[in-house]
């Protein structure tokens, strides 16, 4: 359900953070204001300020975060792995938009960049959110091929190029959670609403012509919360760093659901 006010321990305003200035010789300096939260400290979250010398830093926000961690504050915590938009680990909220830090260029406009963890998830530490529930929702749609008939002898289950096109785009989801955590409906009802990422994964298998459990998959989604909490707000489309369209996939699931009930 809707929550208009953050829990008391989640509020960071009025909590003074630390300021780490850039080296005196730095010319091109960019200010990063970064959400900090350490559950072991017992203190509420705060915002630390880091001034980064862009002449000694890579072009992406993740480069700046790694530079800060390596050279300024080793306790800054964030996930990262591939550094090229494939793994989805470094998803975070940068200047108000959920995106991948590794593919997000450091902005030159504006006074500063504000970096927060993905919204409306429990924070483990700093920029690391707890994705347990998100992954559980993903697993609940059974994101694997399910069949009734045995595989053809001596060959794989084949698909036409046209059939493969149906799953090409949904398969490109990297499960970064940018879409789900940008969705107000997911913020409000994430206990029961599956969210755009899990629904896109479900769709990927619903349209797969090799899968033989489309009926069961639709049955599983047929619920006023699991599927129909999507109100076509479209934040998921705007947030997706892979330019996917979960909203269209959800609309197609609803259309299939309605035509099936005729």
């Amino acid at each position: 359900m809707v929550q208009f006010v953050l829990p008391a321990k989640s509020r960071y305003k009025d909590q003074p953070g630390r300021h780490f200035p850039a080296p005196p010789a730095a010319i091109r300096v960019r200010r990063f204001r970064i959400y900090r939260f350490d559950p072991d400290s017992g203190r509420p979250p705060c915002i630390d300020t880091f001034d980064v010398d862009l002449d000694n830093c890579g072009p992406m926000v993740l480069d700046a975060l790694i530079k800060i961690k390596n050279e300024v504050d080793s306790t800054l915590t964030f996930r990262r792995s591939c550094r090229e938009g494939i793994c989805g680990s470094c998803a975070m909220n940068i200047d108000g938009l959920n995106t991948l830090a590794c593919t997000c260029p450091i902005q030159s406009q504006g006074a500063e960049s504000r970096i927060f963890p993905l919204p409306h998830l429990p924070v483990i530490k700093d920029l690391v959110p707890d994705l347990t529930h998100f992954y559980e929702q993903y697993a609940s749609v059974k994101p694997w091929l399910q069949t009734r008939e045995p595989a053809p002898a001596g060959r794989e289950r084949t698909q036409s190029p046209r059939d493969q096109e149906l799953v090409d785009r949904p398969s490109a989801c990297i499960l970064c959670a940018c879409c789900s955590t940008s969705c107000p409906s997911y913020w409000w009802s994430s206990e029961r609403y599956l969210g755009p990422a899990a629904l896109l994964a479900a769709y990927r298998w619903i349209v797969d012509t090799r899968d033989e459990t489309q009926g069961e998959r639709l049955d599983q989604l047929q619920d006023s919360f699991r599927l129909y909490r999507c109100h076509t707000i479209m934040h998921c489309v705007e947030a997706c760093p892979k330019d996917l369209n979960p909203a269209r996939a959800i609309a197609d699931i609803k259309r299939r659901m309605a035509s099936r009930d005729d």
Partner: protein
Amino acid sequence: MTGRSPHGAAAARPDPHATRHWRNQRLSAIALLLLGPWFIYKLLTLPALDYATVTAWIAEPLQALLLLLFAWSALWHSALGVQVVVDDYIGGRLHVPTARLLQVSHWAAAIAVAWSIWIITQGGA
């Protein structure tokens, strides 16, 4: 050990009402798209909006039928929409009573509209 998450276990029970609700939203919206312009057109082209003129217009059988369909479509669409708002915004113990109260309110309004139009068509206004 099935490996099925709580979401998966709950998902074993499909709810046809959910799809019906979604489809009814679209059906009532289509009805409003057709009847809404008719209603506005009628209001704009009536010679006056005084009590006698409006009741005389409603007393015509075809107009009464269309007006009834328009009002019922609007109430149906409203009831469906309000249900979504209640699901989103009202949780805990208040959820079911609020939803029921709003459903009953819409039913009462639908009956009142039908009764009013019936009275007018029977010349009892």
